[in-house]
């Protein structure tokens, strides 16, 4: 009981020492997560997926500095794929734009939290530089929407689909090679 209390006091003390930007970034993550989930819920309300994603989102918010935010992002992608597959006429591209923007916000904010201790004072120039890839990603969402809308009229042959699967697997292999060996640095 005493150790539990000590742990709670330690956790509260760590939260008290957190800089303001840490709370702001976590707020960005929360808003992005709510946006992505709300759009998907409006299309296919799935209680199981919703609860699982809420748990993953909570875990990602608390331990944002490691790889745990990936769980929520992967869950959103899976939910979007399920929604697209279960919609008879196919999912509208415009529906996925806010979902993608939510994912970008979640991913960028979690990435920014990784770079410094929660109580660090960060120079303003650092935020400007960190915003560049996020801005490019937002532009890519719009470009991707345009591309997806144009590609929607194309019917792919089976051989091309096979080639695409192989390419995707190769990229997956590259991802495994790039995977960092260090553990989470939340503590």
């Amino acid at each position, binding site marked *: 009981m005493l150790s539990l209390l000590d742990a709670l006091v330690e956790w509260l003390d760590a939260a008290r020492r957190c800089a303001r930007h840490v709370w702001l970034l976590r707020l960005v993550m929360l808003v992005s997560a709510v946006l992505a989930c709300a759009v998907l819920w409006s299309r296919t309300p799935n209680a199981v997926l919703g609860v699982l994603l809420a748990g993953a989102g909570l875990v990602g918010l608390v331990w944002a500095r490691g790889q745990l935010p990936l769980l929520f992002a992967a869950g959103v992608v899976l939910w979007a794929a399920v929604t697209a597959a279960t919609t008879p006429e196919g*999912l509208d591209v415009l529906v996925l734009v806010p979902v*993608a923007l939510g994912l970008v916000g979640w991913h960028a904010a979690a990435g920014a939290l990784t770079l410094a201790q929660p109580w660090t004072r960060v120079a303003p120039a650092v935020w400007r*530089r960190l915003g560049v890839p996020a801005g490019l990603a937002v532009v890519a969402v719009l470009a991707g929407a345009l591309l997806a809308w144009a590609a929607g009229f194309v019917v792919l042959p089976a051989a091309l689909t096979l080639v695409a699967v192989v390419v995707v697997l190769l990229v997956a292999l590259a991802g495994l090679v790039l995977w960092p060996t260090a553990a989470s640095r939340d503590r």
Partner: protein
Amino acid sequence: MRLRPSPALVRAVVLLVLCGTLAVLTSQVALLVLAAPFTVWAALGVLRRPGTSEAPDGGLSAHRVQLGDVVEYRLRSEPGTLVGLTVPPPARCDLDPPSGAATGLGETAVRLRPQRWGRHRVEPTEAVVADDWGLWLGTLRPRPDAVSVAPGREPPGRGDVIPHPIGLVGLHPSRTRGEGVTLAEVRRFQTGDRLRRINWRVTSRTGQLHTNATLAERDTEVLVVTDTVADLVGDSGTSSLDTTVLAAASVAEHYLRLGDRVGLHDLGHVIGSVPPAAGARQRTVLVEQLARASVERAARPMVRRIRRVRPGSLVVVCSPLLDRDVLAEVLRLVHRGAAVLAVDTLPPELGRLDGAHRARSVGAVLDAAVERLRPQRYWTEAWALRRLERDVDLDRLAELGVPVVTWRGIESLGTVVAALAANRGAPRMARGAGAGAG
């Protein structure tokens, strides 16, 4: 050093693969919208893959500072990289930022303001280096560094009188006649007197040759003794060790400025000893000695005795005057013919019961209640008893001709030293008067 992919880059690659696979397997082109931002993110990571670069270099901006000065630990990397530095606060040091952690572009710095003299070791924890878009990052441990902090000195005041000037030249007026500027008397001219000292006004008025006699000006030997056997800290944070070192530095500075020979002896093992000498170099030596002191050595209870003291020297003992061995050492100095002055450095609030029960605000009442519930709640009363015991010792010292002064700057010390000089003269005059009368 070598940077590795950041968690953000790894996450982007994994999400890209997941989106692409699901898009292909479900034949849903719309999922490309989700894959697009992570494609860009992963592509940027591949394009900006850094090579092996030089490890950032860090260090303190100064290695010798005065108490109250600010020193910076700066970590520099290549331009356009993010550098994150964390410096755990050394004991009794203020940090800016208060957390001791800062992240900047190209370089970053944490400022330290030591609140205590001595040697402070600055040991940063693991530092983070990343490219400016946060795609690749690495960690390193910056090299530790140390800064020596010289104790602050109070501005010199008056009080250039000392009990026994024992040198040949100096600034203190001696009680013997000799070459100087302070007028002692106007007397008849004697063979050998300097012509330029003839007082022509008195000579013309009396019709006989008169001359001005002056007091010789001499220096003396001042030994500053510090008691670093224990460090006693009051409720307000005042430390007996800090006051001792501040008083020692101020006294040494004051008498060195007057041209005297000043030495330093530490009864504990914190500072060490410096043989007496005069001049600016001795001032530097003393300041360096005080700055290199290590507070960690304050816990050794054994007293280092003073081997040599010149009779007639002024000995200023800076001590909380609690240790029996220290008091015995003071008595030994008196018996060896030194003019001893004790500077009391015990924190004034220790053992004072005046304000103990005057809790007025709700917070103060609660604090007092919590204080009463503590297991060691009788510390204040215990200190009050100890202070009463000490007062008896101080009275005995005063009876032996050792004045005890609470440290309030060099001004108060000067007044007491002047009184000490007057007391030393008084018995001789009394003996002379008695002999003359008899």
